[in-house]
């Protein structure tokens, strides 16, 4: 015989089950500016949760100022300050969980080449294998 006498892959089977039943890991939540560049989380944390800010115009009325900073959920790109993100959403998706960056450790510095505009990777693939 030229084949393995026994092939047991319980982790693989469990992972496949998790995928088919929709179990997913958290996605990234980053604070970005109007150009979708990542800024420190405290820029977003200090802003009200609305799409536009109002500020008195000094004449009894208000001027509306577009939100400079907002959270960005999922998609490509990482947590690196100044890096660009895309492919995600301005609002969290139902049923998904998100994590923000922590401390001084930067994340997202690997993985961008295959997620940015990745629609040309289709069929059974979409990955980095060959």
């Amino acid at each position: 015989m030229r084949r393995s006498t026994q092939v047991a892959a319980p982790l693989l089977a469990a992972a496949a089950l998790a995928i088919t039943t929709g179990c997913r890991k958290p996605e990234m939540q980053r604070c970005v500016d109007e150009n979708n560049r990542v800024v420190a989380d405290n820029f977003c944390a200090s802003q009200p949760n609305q799409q536009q800010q109002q500020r008195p115009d000094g004449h009894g009325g208000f001027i509306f100022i577009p939100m400079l900073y907002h959270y960005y959920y999922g998609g490509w790109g990482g947590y690196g300050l100044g890096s660009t993100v895309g492919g995600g959403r301005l609002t969290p998706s139902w049923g998904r969980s998100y994590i923000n960056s922590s401390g001084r450790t930067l994340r997202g510095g690997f993985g961008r080449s295959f997620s940015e505009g990745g629609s040309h990777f289709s069929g059974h693939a979409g990955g980095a294998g060959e």
Partner: protein
Amino acid sequence: MQRIPLTPREDWQQKVESAGLTFHTLEDGTANGDPYWDESAAYQFTAAEIDTLEAAGNTLQEMCLAAAQHIIDQKRYAELDIPAEAIPAIEWAWNNEPPALYGRFDLSWAGAESGHAPKLLEYNADTPTSLLEAAVIQWNWVKEMDHNKELSAFGSLDQFNSIHEKLIAKWKDIDPFLSKPIYFAALDNPEDQLTVTYLRDTAEQAGLPTLQMYMEEIGWNDEQQAFLDPNEDHMFSIFKLYPWEAMLQEEFGPHAIDTYQSTRWIEPIWKMLLSNKGILPILWQLYPNHELLLESHFDSPGTMADYVRKPLMSREGANITLVRDNATIATTGGPYNGPQIDQALAPEAVFAKENGDRRHPILGLWMIDQNCCGLGIRESAGPITDNFSSFVPHFFI
């Protein structure tokens, strides 16, 4: 070598899913795409043909290692478009032999009766996939089909496939050289995640503790000059299903180079020399007219009238041009630019379906350690194997 039409097993989707292959059907935008795992046929080999393939894999491995040594000795990195900043790490890795695990040669062959030797198309030495299909799913298939009436005429079925055993043995072999846990990192898609889950499974069965994460979750801490996992723990041993050429272009690439000697990356960075299409003309220069090779040249077809043009670092059949009688007969799009090589067209290896449709198989020979230990076959409707090609099981008698 024959292509045998078969009736797929009842509930084959559920069977392959429960074993780990959730991506068994191609995503073509419809609810019912063509199967990626295609058991409506199988390739049958003779034992002698399997011996030929096994010997080819082992010979090609020796030739590729000699070619890597040649590239390093002669400093031919620029021809492979390898960035200068990666060279010290490549040379350190080559000389110090940090753990390497696996690779897959892709060959074209129509079997012994073709009168030709198998021909090397490329070496997927850094990030080969279709691993769990070859190691697990087709093993389960042949075990069940051994008693199938459609194949009863062939007697007891065997399969060239000890990938699973060899992987576990290799993990045990490299265990002393790896800090624990071993991290397995890949992109967030089912194929890549399940491929690394399978590799992680084999490492766990070899007794090595593991953790799994997304590539994007790998953290870099400047103060510690270290890669950190999501729990802020130092990562010393990392299996990454992610090509070195992409890593080097990304934000953390310089950190991977700077800390290379203190981090065990699998595959090691010297695999860039072999996963690069530039290895093909270098092999041809070192072993001209070798029966396992196709004539290949950098940036020029020379006197060849029938050839395929491939970018040095393309994958999944992207950016390929087929030329016959000096005329382009097929091209594929894609994101890969840069230097290219020209490789002679292989002798035709085409099999017919029952309805007469042509099928082009590519034989993937799995190398674990330095040993050829398995075969996986990708099949496509056209001469270019791409990410719409299917995986077809095999057996031999």
